[in-house]
């Protein structure tokens, strides 16, 4: 099933961040967003996830716009943003389990996620003892711990060492081989094959007044 957006414009903090943006992701596809800081990559990802509303435009799956049934849309996606959604007083296992179970993850999946992100041995460690890179890996473990066709990733490799970046690359490839799709905002080359590029600069609104042509 295709995930796409048509003619999206987004106003944040009384500023037009981008306008007239179109995108589409097919099963097995990956969309890579690039652009400077403040170009609206995160805004676009949040609009795609349904956390923010596009000011104008439509975001949809082949079977209907996401606004028709937000819960169904949420069931189809994993969103890994800048914030890690982890509690310092909960253990690695407990932190992961909460989000995995919420999305219908099973014990085997959770165990597999722990293994794939090289968090084995840390299960009982409280979150407050994790390093930035380990916290990032714990966030990414959510991708494996329960299934969803669409991954929305905001700078997924931040704070990761080279080995972990390779692991993430492998995860994404595996996900795409299984028919999954990914939207990734990144400023570093991830080395993914066969991606669609989307440069936010092409949709920058510039200095236009959002009240343009009104009075």
């Amino acid at each position, binding site marked *: 099933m295709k995930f796409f957006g048509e003619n999206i*414009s987004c106003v944040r*903090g009384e*500023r037009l961040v981008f306008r007239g943006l179109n995108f589409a992701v097919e099963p097995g596809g990956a969309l890579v967003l690039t652009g400077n800081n*403040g170009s609206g990559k995160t805004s676009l990802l949040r609009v795609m996830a349904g956390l923010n509303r596009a000011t104008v435009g439509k975001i949809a799956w082949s079977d209907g716009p996401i606004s028709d049934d937000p819960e169904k849309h949420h069931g189809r996606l994993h969103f890994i943003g800048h914030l890690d959604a982890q509690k310092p007083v909960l253990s690695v296992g407990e932190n992961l389990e909460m989000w995995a179970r919420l999305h219908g993850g099973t014990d085997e999946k959770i165990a597999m996620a722990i293994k794939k992100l090289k968090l084995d041995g840390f299960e009982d460690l409280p979150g407050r003892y994790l390093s930035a890179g380990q916290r990032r890996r714990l966030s990414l473990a959510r991708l494996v711990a329960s299934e969803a066709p669409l991954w929305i990733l905001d700078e997924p490799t931040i704070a990761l060492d080279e080995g972990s970046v390779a692991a993430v690359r492998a995860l994404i490839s595996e996900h795409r081989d299984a028919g999954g799709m990914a939207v990734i905002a990144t400023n570093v080359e991830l080395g993914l094959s066969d991606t669609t590029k989307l440069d936010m600069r092409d949709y920058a609104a510039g200095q236009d*007044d959002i*009240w343009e042509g009104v*009075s």
Partner: protein
Amino acid sequence: MIQKYANPARFNRLAATLLPWFAWPAAILIFAGLYFALFNSPPDYQQGESVRIMYVHVPSAWMALFVYTCMAISCAVGLIWKHPLAHIAAQAAAPIGACFTFVCLMTGSLWGKPIWGTWWVWDARLTSVLILFFLYLGFLALQNAFDDPARGERSAAILALVGLINVPIIHYSVVWWNTLHQPASVIKMAGPAIHSSMLLPLFLMAIGFKLYFLTLLLLRMKALMMARRARGMSMAQLHHQAAE
């Protein structure tokens, strides 16, 4: 592109047409009302001349509730249909409503001194108006509590709706609480025995206040829209400079 949702130009034209139709009648009605209230109505046999405070107090109390209701309705419109003008209207109405509420409390207190011999009595009506005043203050405080003005207006809009559901509950609770703790021995303001010569100024003042409110509302909406537009333009300019 906001044009699709709200058209400030059209609003400005509408406001310019309507303003004189609100402002002049408001002024005339209030002056006429004050004339009858102060010089051409009888003093009350119990309350004496102090009864004249009622001609400001009672319309203010009506306005306090009326403006809150208007505000909550336009908040609902803003939330449901995402119409920015509705949020601007609510934002413009809130301080006006708060001022009417304050005037109602002040005049109530001034009236209470000669009649009850004290500045404040926990009278059911005054107490519910006091709580309403705090609902207004909460709305205003919430609206200004965020760095992102859009966030503030939407939060405050939800609060106004929650408040609207609560206003009658609070009012009847307070009335019940009042009868429980204070057997009705005090003179009720604007009690049932209103002489017909008192009705005319009361009526003039009530209509005058409503038109005065509409005048202020339109003026404030215009000002708020200009401020918003100026902010948007300077933001766009700043981002443009940064991008260069």
